[in-house]
């Protein structure tokens, strides 16, 4: 089975679009519809990657990302930030917060899969260099 990806998105339909694409390409998908739920889920089960809508009601995606990146238990989980509108400022803000990837809506199957693959490959590469450097 392929990697486990947590999709955090408040809109049911947009959540299903992302999940359906990921499932179609063989990934395991977990879903959260708000920031609080996402934080609780990550605490229970650490996913291999998080696809995070930044405009969540309540605790925003920005805040969830900030908390996950601050916590040593979850800081290694790569996050792909998802915003509603392609704005360079959002992209910069996301990378500054420590996000490993960025996507703007509308997401197409091709766009999402390319970015997920890229971020996961980078994660594996950095883990390898980290373990070889450490041992």
């Amino acid at each position, binding site marked *: 089975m392929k990697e486990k990806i947590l999709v955090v998105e408040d809109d049911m*339909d947009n959540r299903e679009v992302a999940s*359906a694409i990921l499932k179609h390409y063989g990934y395991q998908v977990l879903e959260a519809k708000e920031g609080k739920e996402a934080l609780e889920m990550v605490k229970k089960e650490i996913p291999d990657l998080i696809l995070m809508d930044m405009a969540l009601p309540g605790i925003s995606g920005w805040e969830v990302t900030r908390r996950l990146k601050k916590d040593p238990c979850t800081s290694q989980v790569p996050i792909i930030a998802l915003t509603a*509108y392609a704005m*360079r400022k959002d992209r910069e803000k996301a990378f500054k917060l420590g996000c490993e990837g960025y996507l703007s*809506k*509308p997401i197409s*199957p091709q766009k999402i899969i390319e970015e997920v693959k890229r971020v996961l490959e980078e994660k594996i590469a950095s883990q390898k260099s980290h373990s070889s450097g450490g041992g």
Partner: protein
Amino acid sequence: MQNTEKKELLLDLEEIARISQIKEKFLLELIRETEDLYDVLALRMEELDESMERIKEANFLLEEKVRERTKKLTQANRKLRELNKLKSQFLANISHELRTPLNAIMGFTSLLREGIYGEVIPKQKRILERIHTNAEHLLRLINDLLDLSRIEAGKMSLEVEEVNLEKLVQGALSLIEPQLKKKKLKFTLSIEPDLPLMRADPAKVKQILFNLLENSVKFTPEGEIFLGVKKTKKEGKEFVKITVKDTGIGIAQKELKNIFQEFHQVDGSSTRRFGGTGLGLSIVKKLTKLMGGNIKVKSEIGKGSTFKVYLPVKVEK
């Protein structure tokens, strides 16, 4: 004393008495007249005082009125600013609300088209592509609206950096190429080889290039499109001059001043005939102004149009 002497003396005395009588009369007259004058003067003074008082009062009322009007104007101004802010906020919100379902529509359409929910026959695939194209168009309109409202609200900030103009031109061209090919239009590009290094907002320069090209392609049923980029000087300042020329339907002289207005397309039916939102040129003009540049247009019905955008080589934030 001689009699004659006495007589003369008497005469003199009489004369003196007569003169002093006249003098007294004259003095009395003078006093009376002075008194009269004084009365008149006092009256006038009083009147003047009254006038002054009235003027003061009028002045005060006027000042009061001015103060009141100023206050009202300030209030109205503040209210307008607030309303404008609300409008931008509303547009931003509504854009977000509109985009969410639209993103889902586009997402599901892509999923269906790619066969993720099962096999689709070619005819269905074509229809799904058309749904997607239309949704994309709608999304573009929403994004343009949001851009315009942000520019108007003064919320569109410039992100100035060093710009590789040639790369930007290529980027804009790759976006417009499908439309050029679809209409079989000839395209000529002329970029001056040693362009100065530009400092500007790359995304906005690219948008200007793309919107101008898209506008020309849209209104050119056949023939060619020319894009030229060169440096030029105006009033001692260096500018980059972008020229987009087409052999399209052209614009009548009396319509030229309106083409940069939002939602304006020369012929009401042209939106149906040529598509588009009527926001493209308006955004070009606003972005150009935002970067300290200006835009010129020349056109002739049936022959085509030429748009020239001048952007400062060093855009200031």
